[in-house]
Each structure stands twice: as C-alpha cells, then as structure tokens.
C-alpha cells in the first residue's frame, strides 16, 4: 500500500477516511473528551448579527465555533417564474457552500438536500398568506463549515427573515445532537458527525412550543430519542433567547 501510493504522482493523495475510521472508534468510548474540550451537553458559543448584507431586504450572520454562515433574504418580490396564481406566497430556499468552506478545497456548490430541509423547517413558521403572488428568496452561504451546519443555517435564516420584516409566528431555533452508543453529544462538530451512530435535529418555535421539523437518522432507542429531544428543546429555548437579544439590540439601535 505504502509503496503504491509512493509510486503514484504527487497530485493524487488517497483519502484518509478509511484509515481514520479504524483509528477513531476507541477515541469515542466511555471517557473520551470532545476535540474542542466541551462537555457533552454544552453547545458552542453562538454569535448572531443582523444586517450583514446591504443589498438584501434582510440578512443575518451566525457563528457557532468555526461554523460560519451568512443568510440573505430577498423579497417579498414578484415571482420570476411564470406560475399559476396562488393565494399564498412562495418560499424559495437555497443553501450553498463556498469553495473554502471545508478543509479540503471543494467545489463550492449548491446543496440540494440542505436547501429542501431549510425550506421545510421555515415554511411552517412564516405566515405565507400575507404576501400572495410573491416569492421570498432565502440564500444561505456557508463560509466555513465545521459541523452542524444545517441547524445554524436554519436559526440564522429565521433571524434574517425577521430582519427583512416578513411576518412569522415565531423565530425558529434549531439544534442537533449526535448519538455515540451511550452518549448524547449536543451541537456536534464535523469530526464527531463523521463518527456518530445516529443524529437527531429538532427545529422548533420556542415561545409556542411547536416543532416545525424533526430529523432522525441512524440507530436510536426510544428512551434515547426522548432524552435527545428534551435536550434539543431545552437548547432551542436558550438559543432563541440569544437570537431575540440580538434582534432587540438591532431594534433599539434603529430607534435612535
């Protein structure tokens, strides 16, 4: 193997994931420490700021540890695609990654799956009846990705929508947990996400205590799911507080 890779030209480097997988599992046993030194049920410090993009009608920037996301909202504006008359507005979501988002330089392309999930998570919170015949475009750009991008994107997008003055029932906060055999780890980073047994993401409107989206992947037992959901809901409530204080700040600034 070693001789083979030595013979190949330097431009080709075999992916390290296979060898990594073998090494990693012992790390995630009973008494492992998370790579960034957090406790299992401790989220990364969150930072929000509205008004990141001047050209958009509303925008927000979010930073969770090394995951950095910028979301801009355009509209409500006339639907560009010729479409049937509709009583309710349309929500159009798009998530894309920059070329330098991941440690390995990527393509920086659109992410279809995340786009669809973002749409699902937000559409329940927006009062679409208030802008018939028009479209709201939500563009999320991941500047740097280091795990749990989707929850960050969703939270950030709801902040951007609020900034754009679009009617919503409530802010949407989102948190994910990863499951490692016995342990539940909140707000996982990419390294943890790659080795998880299962993941659970909850998107909720905290002040109404309503859930707009729930995603579960991998192996879960019923008590684990319950525990994970409680954990997520609790974290969502706290996250929403941070988001609200950010909006409040912006509102009191513009009062001047």
């Amino acid at each position, binding site marked *: 193997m070693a001789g083979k890779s030595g013979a190949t030209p330097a431009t080709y480097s075999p992916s390290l994931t296979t060898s990594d997988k073998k090494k990693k599992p012992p790390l995630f046993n009973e008494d492992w420490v998370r790579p960034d030194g957090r406790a299992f049920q401790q989220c990364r410090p969150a930072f929000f700021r509205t*008004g990141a993009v001047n050209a958009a*009608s509303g925008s927000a920037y979010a930073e969770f540890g090394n995951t950095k996301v910028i979301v801009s909202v355009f509209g409500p504006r006339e639907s560009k695609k010729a479409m049937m008359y509709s009583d309710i507005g349309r929500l159009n979501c798009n998530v894309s990654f920059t070329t330098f988002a991941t440690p390995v330089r990527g393509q920086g392309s659109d992410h279809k799956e995340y786009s669809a999930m973002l749409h699902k998570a937000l559409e329940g919170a927006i009062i679409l009846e208030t802008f018939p015949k028009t479209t709201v475009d939500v563009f999320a750009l991941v500047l740097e990705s280091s795990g749990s991008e989707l929850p960050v994107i969703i939270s950030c997008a709801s902040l951007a929508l609020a900034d754009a*003055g679009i009617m*919503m029932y409530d802010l949407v906060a989102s948190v994910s947990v990863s499951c490692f055999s016995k342990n539940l780890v909140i707000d996982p980073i990419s390294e943890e996400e790659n080795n998880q047994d299962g993941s659970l993401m909850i998107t909720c409107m905290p002040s109404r205590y309503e859930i707009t989206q729930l995603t579960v992947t991998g192996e879960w037992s019923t008590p684990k799911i319950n525990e994970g959901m409680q954990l997520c809901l609790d974290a969502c409530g706290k996250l929403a507080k941070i988001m609200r204080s950010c909006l409040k700040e912006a509102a009191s600034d*513009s009062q001047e």
Partner: protein
Amino acid sequence: MREIQLPLSQTQKVRLQKALETLESLSRKVNSDASVIVADSIHVNHEDGVLKGHGTADLNGEVVATLCGVVERVNKLVYVRALRAKYKPEVGDIVIGRVVEVAQKRWRLYINYNQDAVLMLSSMNMPDGVQRRRTALDELNMRRIFEEKDVVCAEVRGFQYDGLHLQARSRKYGKLNRGQLLTVPPYLVKRQKQHFHHLEEFGIDLILGCNGFVWVGEHVEAKDDMIEDEVSQSDHQVLLPNKNSVSLEEQEKNYTILETRKYICRAANAVRVLSTLGFNITLEIIKGIIDLSLSMNIDIHDMLGSEFGVLVAEKEAERRSSNKKKR
C-alpha cells in the same frame, strides 16, 4: 435601518452621540419603549376590546407580534409598524421606478414594492403630445419610449385586478436621464405637497419618490411650449426613429456641463449622507447640506466622510431645536 456605519474617531463619536441624543430628546417620547420583535406579546387591555391590526396575531388569547417593529395604537386598533419594510403604495404617490419588462401594451416597473408596478401604454401621454387612440404601431414602438432599465417617474393610479397601476399623464412624468438615481429606505421620504423640485441656483432637478427612490438630475424645462414643434415632427418621431445614429447636434444637446454635474453629485451625496444618518429627506434639508458643504469648501467626495456626517448631524440637531423653540 442599520447602525450608523462610519469610521469615527473618538471625538467624532462623542459629538455624534451628543447630536443624536439631542435629536432623541426632541422627538416624541411616546414610543420610546414600544419596540417589539417577532413573538413578543403586546400588552393590551382586553376589557376595552382590541382590534388586532397588521403584524399581530392571536396566541392563546394573547396578542403577539409577528413582525419586528414598533407598536402603534390608534384607539382600539393595535398594529406593528415594521422597521425595515418594502414600500407600500398609496394612490396619488409620486414614485420613481426602473423598467424591468416591456410587455403587451404595458411596461413593468420595479418600484421596491412586493410586486412590479404596471404602466399601461394607454395611461401615459405620448411623447409627441397628441391625444389619440393607441394603435398597434404605437405598441410596436413602445421601446422607443421606455426601454428596459430606463428610469421612469410616474404616479400611483390604483390597484386593479392584475396589480398596481401607474399613470404618467403629465409633462413632468416620464423618462429621467442625465442624473443619478439614489435608493434610500422608503420611510425617510414623507409625503408632501411637492415632490418635484427645481433647484434654480444649481440648475438641477430633484425628485423625491415616495418609494424611496430619489432622482437628482440636470434641470429639464417642462416642454409645454415645444408641443407644437413636436407635433409637426411627430411622423418622423414615430416612424423613423433612428436610435443608433445620434447626430452631433443631438450629442451636443445631451451634453451636461461640468458645473451642473458637480452640483448633481453634491446633491446626490447630500441624500446619501442623510440616508446613512437616517434623517428624513426633504428639499429644505438637502439644500441646507449643499449650502453647508459649499460654504465650508468641502470637496464632493469628502461629503461622504465621517467628519461631514457628524457635522450634518449636529446641524440637524441645531435646526430641529431652533424649530422647536419657534413653536
């Protein structure tokens, strides 16, 4: 609106803060703590009965906000005025728009509203000034009047089944050229008696569109006296407009002298300063800023600097407090 984004030195910061505080103390105190964000509950007195207005919803018998903004109360009505919202047209508003599409007998204009506005061919005066039925030929020649990306000034006519309609039935409306279009938040432009202004001393026109589009351009004479000339040439104009070959004479006619251009930039920068500071945009204030910049010999590009911004804020505070005293 955003925080004021100017690179300020320490003393400038203090001065700006002081000016803003004076302004704040002058404004009404009523709404000072009425700002809400999404899903905040709004305190209401249920015994009096409430009418839930725009931006509010009902949650378990409580009134909650669905927008970020300021709570306004009018008798029983409770509504939320959004801080950053699109323009809401009202009939009779003067707006400036940009043509996005030339369609069947109509132009579609972007006016910073939820939907594009419609300007029908039939609801505008023809450039030749004759009143007649619009023929198929006129329809074919629509691009000669307005093209895509042209800036057009018009009046809001009303809502029809197919959207918002505009009209341009006067000489003062129509295509705008030789100037600058500025976009500011719509709430900075208040509805007034007069939205068309001619600043004679500078030879420029200033149009304050209610939708937050402000036009600063070279003064154009209202061409009432020229109608007759044009009628005689109307056949030329409709049938043989040769767009590409602009004659030398034409070019000379379209030339704006440097002096005027400078004034246009000065006025435009005055509007920009006002919009970064978040002050209302009126003729009087713009004139004040231009005069201030001229009297202090400030270069056009320096008008956007932080020093001038602070100066304008101080001036404005002074002006408002003196207005207050007069009253």
